[in-house]
């Protein structure tokens, strides 16, 4: 099947899909960011109900993207799935705990006799939005900084640190990456509300929240991008597959792939333009610019690890155990099958777009939430 296409091309294609899902997930994390703004933004119960109900119509987007991201990695790069999930055990488990609590928190928060009380579920939403996104950021950052694993000759792996992944929290880069995503998701959350609400009272506050978070996000982003470009990264030899350290590898990759570099630049500019549109012009469509910018930027930053013979998950315990798209992928047959399956992606985008449009035809107000018997 798809015999004329080389295994390497399929691997690159699937790395692109995984990167794109990563980019989409970060955009969809506006839900999580929004959750952390519940009390920052909602000054009374009505406003908080509006926030929850507005997010409640969208929360499944980030959840399903995360599940899909996991599924795609399992099918396309099973060795990464095995090495990282089975090794950085505590990090992934903590992420899962943060996501298990999300759906129920929406559904149970306002229900009578809900056992734990409303505040408890609001705390769960905050944990999901802050710790959940922070840890996902840390886990993504380890794609650049590496993990402590060894892969044996049978391709079975083990982790060399008893902290099973928690040691990633000692790296300033990882921490900065995690925090960067948290503040980005809060910005996206504020922009989403700005677009979705029709409550004048809240608009000034929303823009102020956006500005505050932007001032934290931008220096973090500059630090992370700087580190990424100018730090050492890992290269593998095309024929011998031996892994070596190369200085400024990520920057070289971008420079050798002008299209990817352009996508990164456009992404960053779109993000900045969106912020300008929101803060200076007070345009409600700013989310789309910042959102598109986020998807392009994150996708490019992830995709760059899969091209030009780059290691996408370096091993700190044994450099030669490091994972590349070539040594961790599924077989040619499976990747081909999955290529056909990926044709469904536009269909999924299509109905999500349609659902979003039909639900957002009229903007949300406090009155609407009050009058909806099914509200959260």
């Amino acid at each position, binding site marked *: 099947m798809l015999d004329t296409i080389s295994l390497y091309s399929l691997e690159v294609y699937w790395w692109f899909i995984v990167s794109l899902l990563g980019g989409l997930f970060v955009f969809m994390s506006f839900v999580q960011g929004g959750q952390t703004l519940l009390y920052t933004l909602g000054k009374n119960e009505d406003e908080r109900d509006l926030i929850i109900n507005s997010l*409640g119509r*969208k929360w*499944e987007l980030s959840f*399903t993207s995360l*599940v*899909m991201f996991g*599924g*795609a990695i*399992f*099918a396309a790069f*099973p060795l990464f*799935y*095995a090495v*990282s*999930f*089975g*090794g950085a*055990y*505590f990090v*992934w*488990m903590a992420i*899962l705990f943060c*996501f*298990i609590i999300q*759906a129920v928190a*929406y*559904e*149970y928060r306002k*229900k*009578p*006799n*809900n*056992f*734990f009380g409303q505040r408890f579920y609001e705390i769960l939403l905050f944990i999901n939005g802050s710790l959940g996104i922070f840890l996902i950021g840390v886990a993504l950052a380890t794609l650049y900084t590496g993990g402590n694993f060894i892969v*044996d*000759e*049978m*391709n*079975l*792996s083990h*982790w060399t640190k*008893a902290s099973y992944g928690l040691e990633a929290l000692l790296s300033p880069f990882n921490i900065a990456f995690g925090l960067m995503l948290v503040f980005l998701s809060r910005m996206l959350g504020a922009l989403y509300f700005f677009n979705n609400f029709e409550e004048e009272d809240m608009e000034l506050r929303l823009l102020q929240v956006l500005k505050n978070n932007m001032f934290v996000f931008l220096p973090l982003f500059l630090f992370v991008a700087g580190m990424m470009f100018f730090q050492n990264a890992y290269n593998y030899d095309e024929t011998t597959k031996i892994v070596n350290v190369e200085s400024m590898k990520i920057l070289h990759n971008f420079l050798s792939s002008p299209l990817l570099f352009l996508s990164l630049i456009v992404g960053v500019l779109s993000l900045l333009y969106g912020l300008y549109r929101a803060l200076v012009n007070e345009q409600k469509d700013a989310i789309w610019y910042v959102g598109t910018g986020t998807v392009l930027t994150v996708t490019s930053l992830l995709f760059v690890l899969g091209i030009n013979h780059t290691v996408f998950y370096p091993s700190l315990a044994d450099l030669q155990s490091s994972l590349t798209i070539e040594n961790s992928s*599924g*077989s040619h*047959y*499976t990747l081909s099958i*999955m290529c056909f*399956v*990926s044709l*469904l*992606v536009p269909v999924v985008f299509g*109905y*999500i777009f349609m*659902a979003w449009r*039909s*639900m957002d035809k*009229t903007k949300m107000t406090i009155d609407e939430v009050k009058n*909806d*018997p*099914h509200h959260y």
Partner: protein
Amino acid sequence: MIEHSDLLIDWSRAQFALTALYHWLFVPLTLGLTFIVAIMETIYVKTGDEWWKKTTKFWMGLLAINFAIGLATGIIMEFEFGTNWSNYSWIVGDIFGAPLAIEGLMAFFMESTFFAIMFFGWEKVSKRMHLTSTWLVAIGSNLSALWILVANGWMQHPVGMHFNPDTARNEMEDFWAVFFNPNAVSKFLHTVSSGYVLASLFVIGVSAWYLLKKREVLFAKRSIIVASSFGLITSFFLLMSGDESAFNVAQKQPMKLAAMEGVYKGENKAGIVAIGLLDPEKVLGDEKDPFIFKLEIPNALSFLGYHSLSAFVPGVHDLVYGNEKHKIMSVIEKMKKGKLAVEALSDYKKYKKENNPQKAKEALVIFEQNQAYMGYGYLKKPEDAVPNVALTFYSFHTMVGLGTWFLVLFIMTLYFSMINEIEKKRWLLRLMLMTLPLGYVAQEAGWIVAEAGRQPWAIQDLLPVGMAASNVSSTSVMITFWLFAVLFTGLLIAEIKIMFTQIKIGPEGEH
């Protein structure tokens, strides 16, 4: 070769069992109730009767409470293959990962996207669009079950792949063989129909409570008619797919069948034990009767398992120690061949590394001759190939017994509803209410048969659980086990309290 401690395997299995059993408390209701609300909403759209809209909305409200916790407990299942069964993820990920990814893309997005419209879109989209969304939620959640059961069916009966000695893993070679695996097909049909039955029990159980309390009478009676018709039809379906499942087990997992029926010594014209009490003192290899007491239907097992009244049904003893007459190879023999395969694979890798193609080729020949038994090479002793007989036996009999009772209940409920006497039959209403928790018992028992009966295999005959687990410390798994236990129990209590409160409020209180 990696050797895991028994403690690690036990905790890893316990965690998977805990999360799977919790998850399965919620999934079947979603599978069935989505269809029931879709049917009710269709009646509303066809007749324009607002009463049906109210009824639909009430059951939809209960569905949402259940859906949220089903989703929450589901995400862990997918990721646990990586976190706790990472060797598994590598060794069979090339086949197993695909249906999980397809499930996400094809089904999960569909059910969750349209769930938002179904739940919040009453005033925002047209009637027709809303109805379509409700049906898409039902179809999406059932499609989701399809892909998960394709994956599970493959674990029970691996097909459509070959072992690649260079990558040291199994690789897919025929997607359609994986998809149309007879085990997957019967498993899917059996599982979703069990969900429809449970949802029917749920609706008639809740409605019976209203009738016992003499409230919401019209609502309850109409709901009972919809649910008992749906339950009756799907019960027959459940019965047929169950028969097909058992037939598949007999063909592909004879050890599981022996455990399900408590057969130690194989026999021709084997009967099915309708009711039985196993002797806890019974040890594999002794001559004791495994049953203290049993009531048997003669020849039935031979017929159901092999479609012949006189067929030979092998017992646990035959499968472990072999049976020359019936050409059954012993586990000891399989273990010998398996160990040869494991060693040959290791040699093959070694010689390849040393750049010795001749020796590598020789090792490969030995590997290929014994490859079919490689999984047995990881077992420590022949008795390890036997699942927990008592657990499998009692779970199986509980499931079948309850399934039969549900069928009888649906017939009675539908009959008394049709002659409009259901309200007066308080004994029946009580039975309907009491049967609801039994529906959940049957569901869990079914999965215990499927999964505990498959032990020691993660993938039947190919990969034992001992080899499949991640290389983490048992303490780490123990910590997460208890965290899950506390979190899921807390959420379950909240869910039940909220559900009961909503039922008490009733359909009228909703509006």
